[in-house]
């Protein structure tokens, strides 16, 4: 079910499914896509709470567009308090992974563990080396090639979508640019503070991720104390989308030692 909730003056769209340990899922720059299977699969084990980032869906960007990633981090920390979450699992993919890391370096109090799925957000190498592919400089075909193990799975027939969904896609693209355009998809200061993440952390990475490579994931693993990096075969930048069963199995095995 989808609802809206007021958090600190911001109206958030929230999708909630399932029962059990709370799991806060922060979606990728592509959008939440709640009709895709991973939320349902997660909801077999957890109470999944998935906000739509402000600016995506039908929502307005935070503070009329004045807010950035740090504002989203505080907003979701406020949301966790508002919902009274205790011992929750924090999961973030791509842009959502960046936000999740920004939250955890501020406060991990309401979370028991962290799962980052091919997160954006940190700068590892030199000033003239890209850590994060410039996907705004790619054609759609080039992007699918870089972001998917099987590019055909990422194709969308836009002409078949209703205007409301197209509008949500356009709004999401604008919001993604708003939050991540410059510095490109990272916070130059975030890496410095990743040592503050004091919860068990799993990094999930598609073996064929051409947006941020598994080598970049290795950089994340080095910075977060005790973190584990799992490589998901036959997946690109969105392993939760391309291999949803494998994704959920690895996640729940890490959280609960369960074989889903």
């Amino acid at each position, binding site marked *: 079910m989808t609802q809206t909730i007021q958090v600190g003056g911001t109206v958030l769209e929230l999708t909630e499914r399932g029962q059990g340990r709370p799991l806060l899922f922060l979606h990728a720059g592509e959008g939440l896509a709640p009709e895709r299977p991973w939320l349902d699969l997660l909801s077999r084990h957890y109470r999944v709470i998935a906000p739509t980032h402000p600016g995506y869906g039908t929502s307005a960007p935070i503070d009329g*567009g*004045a807010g950035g990633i740090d504002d989203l981090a505080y907003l979701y920390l406020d949301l966790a308090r508002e919902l009274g979450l205790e011992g929750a699992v924090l999961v973030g993919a791509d842009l959502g992974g960046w936000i999740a890391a920004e939250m955890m370096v501020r406060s991990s109090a309401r979370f028991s563990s962290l799962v980052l799925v091919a997160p954006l957000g940190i700068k590892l190498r030199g000033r003239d080396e890209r850590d994060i592919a410039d996907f*705004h*400089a*790619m*054609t*759609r075909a080039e992007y699918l090639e870089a972001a998917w193990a099987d590019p055909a799975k990422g194709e969308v027939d*836009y*002409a078949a*979508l209703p*205007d409301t969904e*197209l*509008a949500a*896609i*356009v*709004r999401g*693209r*604008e*919001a*993604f*640019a*708003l939050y991540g*355009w*410059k510095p490109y998809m990272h916070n130059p200061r975030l890496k410095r503070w990743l040592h503050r993440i004091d919860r068990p952390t799993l990094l999930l990475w598609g073996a064929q991720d051409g947006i941020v490579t598994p080598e970049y994931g290795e950089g994340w693993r080095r910075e977060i104390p005790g973190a584990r990096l799992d490589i998901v075969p036959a997946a690109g930048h969105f392993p939760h989308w391309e291999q949803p069963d494998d994704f959920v199995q690895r996640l729940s095995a890490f959280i609960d030692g369960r074989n889903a």
Partner: protein
Amino acid sequence: MRVWYFSEMAYHPAWEEGLKRGSLRVVLPNANYDPEIGHQLLNRYLDEFRLCDEVGLDIMVNEHHSTSTCLTISVPMALAVIARETKRARLLSLGTPIANRPDPVRVAEEMAWLDVLSGGRLEMGLVKGAPYEIAPANSNPATLMRRYWEAHDLILKAMSTTSGPFSWEGEFFHYRNVNIWPRPYQQPTPPVWMTGLSPETGRMAAEHGHVVGTLLSLSAAGPMFEAYRKRAQELGWTAGADRFAYAGVVGVGATREEGLRRANLAADYVRTSVVVAEPFTNPPGYNSLAANVAALKSGGKRGGFVRDRNGNPVDQRTASIEQLIESGTCFAGTPDDVYNQIKGLHDSVGGFGNLLMFGQGGFLDHADTVVNITLFAEEVLPRLRELSPSRAATQAAAAQ
């Protein structure tokens, strides 16, 4: 009507390679640029601007970045040279892409300096900039217009404040001591221009009393000028023709054939300007939600901004000179032809007091450009000066 001669100072020797690669901008490596040829071209183009002053035309300069279509990367640099080489022409900067500039106070300083140098001949365009300018500037397209208006307000305040220093702590720009020296020659600021394609831009320009310009498409000009007039009327003043500008390609000749030939060469500006690698044509947030929804639905087809008389897109890359005359993009033929085409368009959009004349484009060589400029100035300009003189001046009430 005033006529402002304009050339993008193209580097056409690289166009063939750019067309082959599908982009004349952003991603075409500058290995395709020869410094010696560039040296000759820049000097040639500046000679052509100087000629305009001698024959009675006003002058406009613009800027683009990372492109073979336009070697002018700084309006103030080009106008600084032109200001010293001319005596009479008014000098239109159209303009500075202020949402892509990190330092608006520097823009105010440069514009004030140019105004002082030229003895008050500067007209100051503050423009949004084309979508493919986002990448070279690496400015955030999702905040472009908010940054535009903050820079606009700061520039005008910096130029018109005489009791500084003042402080500015905005969303994008921060200064503690703004107090520009020199301040402009014209008081309180040089005339301000904006550009656009939509009625919304017309309305916003009217709110400030600025001149508004549009280009290459009569079907965009009409609704935009009308929106301006209406908004001005609502605000209690009447917008004269001097508030409106229209840009078109001009080719004039002693015979119709010669004029068409010149226009056809100059029109390569129109045909090449939209050849840009696809990812840079529509950065997120640059265009409206509705325009982007329509683009997704149509599979992202791009038509550029030239529209026919019914508002349907014309493929700029392949348009014939006849199509471009029909769409109001080009004015071409004998002096009579050119005058009649301009007058026809002028009348159909409710009048405009400024024609921005693309009188050179790419492969139109120096000899042809000289004839194009002089013949236009001798045979067409005097008649255009008489066009809608009664509407020439905006009432004093318009001055904010």
